[in-house]
């Protein structure tokens, strides 16, 4: 019979056994603090909106027309859609920015009549989790869409740019073909598609309800 070993013999402690797991957990925490530096997309969106307001775009609140005087301005020729939010407002004439709450995206900016029958409008900037989307569309007084284009799309990620470069031309074509927003979004760009439709729909609503003159 082997005698029992004395109980005082040193046994590997809990600390010794748990050390690798504790080290791994600490390393994870450290790595997390080093790696986690997400770019703040939502902020970019709201910045855009307030920029638009402060530079004095004509604004109409479709939800409460009384508060937003309709006003159109004939300006020169922005036939090339601007690519950044900042330059768009610069090309258009101004009134009453004060009526626009800085954080409220649905604004309609009217710009140049591109043809005798079509007027170009800027839709409201829609914030998405990837970034802001804003549609510019040329619409006749009867609601006919002459052309549409997204002038602001999420661009903080190379990935977003890639997706939108593919999706936006498709959406532009579909909007004209559908003469409205009843078209299929581009799969893989669902969020941009939905924001695109929202912005475009706001323009159509504003034109059809006569809040903005064609």
């Amino acid at each position, binding site marked *: 019979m082997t005698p029992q070993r004395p109980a005082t013999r040193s*046994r590997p402690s809990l600390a010794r056994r748990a050390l690798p797991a504790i080290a791994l*957990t600490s390393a994870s925490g450290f790595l997390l603090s080093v790696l986690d530096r997400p770019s703040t997309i939502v902020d970019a969106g709201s910045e855009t909106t307030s920029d638009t307001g402060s530079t004095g775009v004509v604004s109409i609140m479709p939800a409460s027309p009384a508060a937003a005087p309709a006003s159109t301005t004939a300006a020169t020729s922005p036939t090339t859609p601007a690519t950044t939010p900042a330059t768009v407002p610069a090309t258009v004439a101004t009134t009453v920015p004060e009526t626009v709450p800085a954080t409220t995206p649905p604004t309609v900016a009217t710009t140049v009549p591109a043809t005798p029958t079509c007027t170009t409008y800027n839709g409201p900037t829609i914030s998405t989790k990837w970034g802001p989307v804003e549609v510019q569309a040329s619409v006749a007084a009867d609601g006919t869409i002459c052309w549409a284009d997204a002038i602001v799309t999420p661009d903080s990620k*190379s990935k977003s740019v890639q997706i939108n470069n593919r999706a936006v031309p498709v959406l532009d074509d579909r909007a004209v073909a559908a003469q409205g927003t009843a078209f299929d979004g581009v799969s893989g760009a669902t969020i941009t598609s939905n924001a695109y439709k929202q912005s475009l729909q706001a323009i159509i609503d504003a034109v059809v309800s006569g809040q903005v003159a064609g």
Partner: protein
Amino acid sequence: MSSRLDAPTVSPSGASSPRGAAHQSTATSRRLLPPARRSRVLDSDIIWGLGAYVALVVGIWSMHGGLTRFTEGVTGIATAITQLSGLGASAAGLVGLLFTARPAILERRYGLDRLFNWHRVLGEAMAVLVGVHVAAALVEWQVDGAWGAAIADLTGREPYMAGATIGALLIGIVTVTSLRSMRNRLSYETWYFLHLTAYLGFALSFGHQIVTGADLADDAIARWIWVGLHGAVAVALIWGRWGRVLRSVVRPLRVHSIEQVAPGIVTLRLTGRRLRSMRGSAGQFCFLRALTADGWWRSNPFSLSEAPGEDGLRFTIKDRGDASQLLASLPVGTKVAVDGPYGVCTPEIADGRKVLFVVGGVGIAPARAMLEVLPPSAEPVVLYRAHSAADLVHHDELVALAERRNGRVLTLVGPSASLAVRDPFSAHTLRQAVPDVAERVAVLCGPDRLLSAARTGLRRAGVDSGDMHFEHSWW
């Protein structure tokens, strides 16, 4: 009796021993615990449940692009694969975690050993899917070969992706340390504590599933289903895993006595009031956690070596390392937390048929307990393999219990090399020793090598593999 001493032999043990008979008479007067409840779950329930689960996951995937993405070039295909492998990894991991919560309806039907093995399979599947997910996500995300930018985006510039990255790393580490070759180099507890970091990995990767994954981010219903599944598994784990530990610690049993029965082998008897509300059957095992300064943080499985009764639980413990030494040297009165019992290898499996036990070493414990409650119709035969005569434990008890049921105990002792028969578990030897072997239900307990040798031999001797019962090794 003498035959068991001159190794190597396969010999029927001699006439009944007075000690065993004495034990038997005390055993019959004991009040046994009510048997473990049986689960009413059927295999078909499991298959339906799994089918519905897979359909749900694939459904969520196909509602958000799914197969249609395959028409959209490399990026589209990569997107589809990223989404499916991501959903699949989570789905597999959730079920894997559910198994470690030891839900009674599953444990009572399939046994903890199978649940743990399924946990392993699902964990490995999850690790592979995470690998596919990461690779596909990089392909999806990179633009014109700008891999650096894609990696930077996916490891931290995107919200919640740093957590996801670390989660994937942790799951990888946990998987690698669970591969047999790695695991054998770690002590059980070192491995176990590392394994717990998988919880952290799972939690860290949750954010990106909800925020970044197009399947869930844009679909409130799918998102809530997903959150609900995670919540349900979390509740099952807290209740089933940690709640059980807590309950065992709050109502511990106490060491009643410890007796040495062979070199390095003791019996440990635990008693306590909690036994009056416990259920359990012979053949089951419990996790024991000594509530002492150096024992509270680990629990080790040991089989009941006597049918569990209100007067106590008996375990037969062989000195294999720290934990077993600690348990073998506890002072009388020490608190021991008992989690269990678990296991489905119980006397009901006999189901009116004759029984054959093939046991090795300390694996005798569950066989000894089952013998006590088998009906005489079982006519039990015990094939008992041990390294030396001194290693045979509970031999006299076994002989007495077997003979009361018209059975017998055949011992086979000695190192393998010294045995007269080259393979003691060949079909030929088995048939000679137990002529009616093919009619019997076989119960196997012992080290892995013995189990695999015995299974092969029994199969060749005509025993259906459905009639072989044993604890699958899980460690």
